[in-house]
């Protein structure tokens, strides 16, 4: 998704001024994606060039009221119904770190996993505290923000579950591998798969960084 679609979505509700668009966008995404006003006007300029939005009014102070054109409306409708594309999985630093840990001598893999799990739980606690401040049931303003926080929570949860899973897998391997074959690559051939199936190994790579979101939300809230 780009700012472009975000602005189209907001204009789908009715004409707005540039500064309004910026305000609305930040409010509804809970401040997790701050925009500067320059980005907003540059994007509006391109949307206008492409015939998707148009100026409907210009105030004396120079601020312009933008509205969707018909082709803008079509583009927006299409966007709502198009699933978000999965990017190429970024190299997951955590998965690679673990892979290196289990194949390196003298590394306490359990400690590596636990250190990470504690850190992930800390992030999960922080996000949950943010969530706890949102009244339940939320009013419409807060609902958008709540969904953003929930999405961060589920992403970290996936990481914790993956760590639990990895730990069990490693423990089983350690249990079976006696003295020889410690470096054998044939261990992970999938015959010891968890019955419940592995949760997607989705790291935090794609999500906004915990620290970043925290700093921003701290300001926004």
């Amino acid at each position, binding site marked *: 998704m780009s700012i472009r679609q975000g602005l189209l979505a907001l204009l789908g509700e009715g004409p707005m001024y540039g500064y309004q668009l910026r305000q609305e966008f930040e409010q509804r995404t809970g401040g997790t994606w701050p925009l500067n006003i320059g980005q907003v006007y540059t994007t509006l300029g391109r949307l206008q060039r492409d015939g998707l939005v148009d100026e409907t009014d210009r105030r004396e102070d120079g601020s312009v009221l933008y509205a969707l054109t018909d082709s803008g409306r079509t583009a927006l409708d299409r966007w709502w119904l198009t699933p978000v594309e999965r990017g190429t999985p970024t190299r997951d630093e955590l998965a690679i770190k673990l892979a290196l840990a289990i194949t390196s001598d003298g590394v306490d893999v359990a400690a590596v996993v636990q250190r990470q*799990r504690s850190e992930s*739980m800390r992030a999960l606690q922080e*996000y*949950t505290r943010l969530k706890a401040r949102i009244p339940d049931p939320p009013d419409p303003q807060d609902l958008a923000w709540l969904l953003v926080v929930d999405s961060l929570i589920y992403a970290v949860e996936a990481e914790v579950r993956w760590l639990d899973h990895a730990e069990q897998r490693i423990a089983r391997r350690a249990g079976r591998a006696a003295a020889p074959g410690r470096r054998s690559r044939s261990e992970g051939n999938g015959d010891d798969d968890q019955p419940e199936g592995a949760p997607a190994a989705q790291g935090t790579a794609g999500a906004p960084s915990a*620290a970043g979101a925290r700093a921003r939300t701290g300001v926004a809230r």
Partner: protein
Amino acid sequence: MIATETTPLLRLGQVGRTHRQGQLEVQALRGVSLEIRSGELVAVMGPSGSGKSTLLHVAGGLDTPTTGNVEVDGVSLGLLSTRARAALRRRTVGYVFQDLNLIPALTAVENVMLPRELDGVGVRQARQEALSALAEVDLADLADRFPDEMSGGQQQRVAIARALVGPRRLVLADEPTGALDSGTGEQILRLLRTRVDAGAAGLLVTHDARHAAWADRVVFLRDGTVVDATANDRPESLLAGGRDAS
């Protein structure tokens, strides 16, 4: 009363618990220490067999440690007679289990009254306390319903009201969201959090990271030992942006 506001409501000191199965000795807990104060919710996470449930049972006086010491509200359980221990347990500790354990033939309010009646409190007072406990979990309207006339989430709220009725301030919860869907499960955690913020103390045993995240502190249990814990940070300090997560 010996206990003060700063006395932990629950204190485990180097608690060990060994089960004997014939020739076999299973060390369910090994030197576990833990303190929980009023206003604190602590989650214990660990895989099955890590000793989570034993920890909860020992903490609530339902099981006796082989070594070490358990104090509830400043009183060492080991120094009490069986009878006195049962009385302390009933007065101070409430339990919420995965299986709701509500009595089907009793209405919501009667279920919540029960522990107070066992305490020897008069019916009128027990009823009053039960109604206010139900109001605190937002169920005042359903006081006269029977468990099977309520949803799973409502039943679990009754169980929480029962756990914290009267003077009880320590709630021990074992996978309290077990059979509930994720939205309802979250409401239960939110409620537990609210009751703890209002002055109770909670020990929550769960394997669900999202639920454990409602706690102030998360303790990781492996093979009967605490291997790590997250610090009891307050949100203000975190949101100030002073700490980097990377």
